[in-house]
């Protein structure tokens, strides 16, 4: 537990920047800590995720940039616009295809799988 009087608490603001130099990560920049961390299953791997992240952010955080292959060329895709407009980041979550990873909150226990083509291979289309 750290409080305002905790001597181990790092200084904030300009003083902190002088003492520690520039931030090393987004988390370092904004400070604090996620309320919970958990494991996300992605194509058979287990990836760390922070509570409050979208599926896309959790995958980026684990260094994964692509989780879809296109219908025609089978080319890898991931986030492009980041705000729900481009639909490049479509993903299959818990068996449900065509969700926009940038808009979909990640939940503990989610199983995320790379989406191939239309995401509806079972229909043969």
């Amino acid at each position, binding site marked *: 537990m750290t409080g305002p009087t905790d001597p181990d608490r790092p200084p*904030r603001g300009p003083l902190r920047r002088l003492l520690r130099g*520039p*931030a*090393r*990560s*987004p*988390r*370092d*920049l*904004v*400070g*604090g*800590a*996620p*309320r*919970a961390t958990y494991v996300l299953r992605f194509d058979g791997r287990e990836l760390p995720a*922070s*509570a*409050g*992240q*979208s599926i*896309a*952010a*959790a995958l*980026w*955080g684990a260094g994964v*940039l*692509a989780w879809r292959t*296109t*219908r*025609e*060329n089978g*080319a*890898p*895709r*991931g*986030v*492009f*616009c*980041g*705000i*729900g*407009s*481009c*639909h*490049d980041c*479509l993903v299959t979550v818990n068996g449900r295809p065509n969700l926009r990873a*940038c808009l979909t*909150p990640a939940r503990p226990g989610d199983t995320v799988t790379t989406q191939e083509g239309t995401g509806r291979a079972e229909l043969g289309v």
Partner: protein
Amino acid sequence: MPNSASDGVPCDLAVVGAGPAGLAAAVTAADLGLNVTLLDAGERPGGQYYRRPAPDLGAARPEVLHHDWAAFATRKAALRAHASAGRITHLPLHHVWTVVPAGAGLLLHAVAGPEEEAVAVPARAVLLATGAFERQLPFPGWTLPGVIGAGGAQAMLKGGLVLPGRRIVVAGSGPLLLAVAGSLAAAGATVAAVVEAAAYTAYAGRLPALLRNPGKLGEAATYGGALLRHGIRLLTRHAVTEAHGAERVEAVTVARLDRQWRPVPGTGRRVPCDALAVGHGLVPQLELATGLGCATRLGADGAVALEVDARQRTSVPGVWSAGETGGTGGARLALVEGEIAAHTIAGRPVPAALGRQRARLRAFAEAMGAAHRPGAGWTGWLREDTEVCRCEEVPVGPIREAVRDLGARDARTVKLLTRAGMGWCQGRMCGPAVAALAGRDPDPDRRPLSCPVPLRRLAELPAEES
């Protein structure tokens, strides 16, 4: 039957979008005594500009990633106060997919939450503050993972506290690039270069608009200072003309441009990176407005925007617009326009100071738009196999063939002949490029649904509306 958020009683004003414009309009209208419903696709107010991490991400200082945070914080507090007093009904996670005339007012149809429940909101007046998305110009390799929108990188950083790579090139055109480069660097990335296609000397011909906006000059100085502090190179009149890599981007080619944005042969050099954040300004999001028949205009930046008068009225009675829907102009202008719209809707005179600020900031937006408007020569960096439509994977070759051999003169005909613009994004990403390849300015966006809507929700609509 759709749920009614107001039991069939129309609210005085429905605001679509809780970004700077919509938020300012909603709280000002409520201040002036109106009963307001605020619908927003996001989970938390603020829009893309004031996007921030979910509370569970536990960011102690989310404001460090933001400019002008105080302007947002005061409106957010006012929203909370009005919502608890019952003057504003805030409906987050509501995607409005169409607005139709209904009796003396308007009816907004939305899908809400993960189950995409149907919601209908009747209103006496509507304010469209739906913002914008990024304008993209294709180049070889732009579909590689690791190539992302500049605004997209910013959104993922602000909302998810993540970076796409460690060594990032920021490219395209417009002041957003400087803000993006500054925040990526502050968050720990190495920004290998900022590559700006325009020349900043393009502003020199518009000195009056600049000098009337000392705040904007201060902002520019802040961004410039951030680049200096992080040792970031700014290359103007240059463009990324190709991204290289197998499974993800590994390097980009940066080439010098002439005044028309044509790459100068022999000037290309390779810059290693593991991500590229790219964007060429913004495109107003207009589906709801064009569906209602609101008149549009071509902005100085080459993008289609709504025609609005000095009181933020569109050409359709009962429909107002504020912020980027009326042309890209930034958050400060959006706040001012939201307040102007609220005063007019409430039947009050617009405070003179607001009118002056709007005129000044719009003049700056026009100067900025003209300076960064894509030059016609950008198509010089395309190859025949460069994909233009990302969704349908349509390359340049068939599009040029449709224009050259089949007589296509606009993006719509190109779409019918090649499928470019027919995929999931409905031409949002390729529209400006396809129009340019057809030798035309872009047409106003016409999409009957502004977001995906389950068929069952359409089937549930009462017969007289369907």
